[in-house]
């Protein structure tokens, strides 16, 4: 589904990704772990097409297509979804209105009928219920005045409504209590299926107790330096990243 080859990317003239390669198959959940500043968010941003992140070398193919040739909105319409590490507040834009505009833009791009507000509201209420999220976030402006946890819940809620093929979660678990963590995990697990894939960036092994990954990759200094199964996450948790760095230096 996703194939990243020798990816080099710069932000503000500084090279952050330095030849990163990674493959994620349909149906797979890949966890990416790594120390602060290693380039995890940069990877997530490059994959979703954020302006200012310049790819200088390498290729990314998504469902056989050149992902890097697409605009952010085209990527979204093709099923790429990024749950932001720091979701931005957008005062004056109602959350429900925004999400319906997004869903309908995607449906339109796929040649499907747009949902009217009644149909949309019905869909949204179902999603809220299955995720055990309170519906007050429907009436508020996008992320405005949301607590850290509420912002993360809103990301998961959006993901549930948009039903992406490739979900990228950038530390969606950071700063969450155990109940909120379960909501995040539910969001992924409910969508999990043969034709979808997830890239879950996390700092803590904790989340992986609830979203059991198919593969675990360590990102350090702009490269994937080690890959393994879920046991790798456990080892990282107990022993830290030092041994990986030493091993890859050797």
């Amino acid at each position, binding site marked *: 589904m996703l194939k990243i080859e020798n990816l080099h990317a710069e932000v503000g003239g500084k090279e952050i990704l330095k030849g990163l390669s990674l493959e994620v198959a349909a149906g797979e959940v890949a966890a990416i772990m790594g120390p602060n500043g290693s380039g995890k968010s940069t990877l997530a941003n490059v994959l*979703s*097409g*954020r*302006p*200012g992140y310049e790819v200088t070398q390498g290729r990314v193919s998504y469902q056989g297509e050149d992902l890097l040739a697409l*605009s*952010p*909105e085209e*990527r*979204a*319409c093709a099923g790429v*979804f*990024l749950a*932001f590490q720091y*979701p*931005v507040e*957008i*005062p*004056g*834009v109602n959350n429900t209105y*925004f*999400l319906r*505009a*997004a*869903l309908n*833009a*995607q449906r339109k*791009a796929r040649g499907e009928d747009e949902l009217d507000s009644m149909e949309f509201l019905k869909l949204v209420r179902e999603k809220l219920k299955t995720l055990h999220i309170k519906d007050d976030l429907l009436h508020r*402006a*996008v992320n405005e005045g949301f607590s850290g946890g509420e912002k993360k819940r809103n990301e998961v809620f*959006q993901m549930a409504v*948009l039903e992406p093929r490739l979900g990228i979660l950038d530390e969606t678990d950071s700063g969450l209590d155990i109940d909120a963590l379960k909501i995040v995990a539910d969001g992924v697990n409910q969508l999990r299926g043969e034709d979808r894939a997830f890239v879950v960036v996390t700092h803590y092994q904790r989340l992986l107790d609830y979203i059991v990954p198919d593969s675990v990759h360590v990102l350090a200094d702009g490269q994937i330096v080690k890959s393994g199964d879920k046991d790798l996450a456990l080892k990282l948790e107990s022993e830290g990243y030092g041994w990986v760095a030493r091993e890859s230096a050797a």
Partner: protein
Amino acid sequence: MRQRDSLARRLIEQAGAEVGVDWWDSVRRDHAQRVADTGLPSRRQENWRYTSLARLDKQELEPARNRGHALQAEDMAPFGIPDWPAERMVFINGFFVPELSCLPDSMDLRVTSLRSVDDPQLEGFRPLLERQFQSPESAFAALNTAIAVDGALIEVAAGAQPEHPLECIYLTLPEEQALACHLRNMIILGEGARLSLMERFVSMGEPSYLSNCVNQFRLSEGARLTHVRLQQESSAGSLITRTDVEQSERSHYEYCGIDLGGNLVRHDINVSLEGSDSAASVAGLYALDGERHVDNHVRMDHRSRDARSETFFKGVMDDRSRAVFNGKVVVQPGADGTDASQTNRNLLLSRQAEVDTKPELEIYADDVKCAHGATVGQLDEDQMFYLRSRGISQDDARVLLIYAFCRQVVDRLESESLRDYVAGQVLGHLPGNQEETE
């Protein structure tokens, strides 16, 4: 400069005729002389520093005359506001048109036109008509006094609260010659009276003209005036307006003005908080494209104790448009307990667009609370990316963010029907297809 001074003189000469009421003719003559002496404002005057009148030179203006029109009631249909019943005064090219209007029939709300008012009723408006506009910066108001023979005269009886709002539609139709229209609107609210006024500046076709209108509102004790202005003038039309508000104790004035059209537009709002515990809230939005130039000047004059005022303007400038905002809060000696705030926020969408913003405070009292601030910025890139990352196109994301910015002003409108209508007009006006930002 010369050319423009001669413009004022020529308009006065051509408009010439006497109105036949001695005191009124006398004040007209005085002001005609005054304008002839001072000429129209120039950029040398502080109040006109950022707004040049050079654009008027290109228009071969002549005074509007009451020539009649060929419109039927159904021609007004495009200006209807759904689910918003209102009394209506229609003015075409500067003259009241009774047959297209729908006036209330009650002693609580007396509505008439300056041209047709009888002498006894006119007497009640005499102090307003006789108001002296002496400074060179007020030359347009003086010109208005010298020339205007029509306008809306409104009196709301003490304690009265008319059921429906009053809508004034100022419509300009193309004529062979570019017209100079002068309207004088005067509103007197009795004690505890209420009125909701909607002013609309519209045109058919793209006529070239100058409208120079003066509003004078007098609010007695405890009165409340809600004033909405929707300005959608022709791109070749110039509009100079002045709104003077005198507020007695415990009165409320609430203004919400939306500027979407016009070539050269200037609005001076002068609120005089004369009675203690009075309150004024003046909010505005200008959303400009093309070569439009829109200048809003607000002066809040706190002349008594414990009055509150809020000035809140937002603006979006695209293409080569230019906006000017000047807000001045004056706290006179003895006006203790004043609470005043002033905000101006601007969004520049193009490199060629410009805004000059100047909030000013002049405080001569001790116990006052005044806050002011002005900002000029661009669309937020993180917000843009967030919307696009969910599948919303770049153009739609821009419109969504600009609209969200504008809503803060539009949302102040109390009536839901009016709010929806104005929101629709604003949305329809926003730039849809802008140059790529990447």
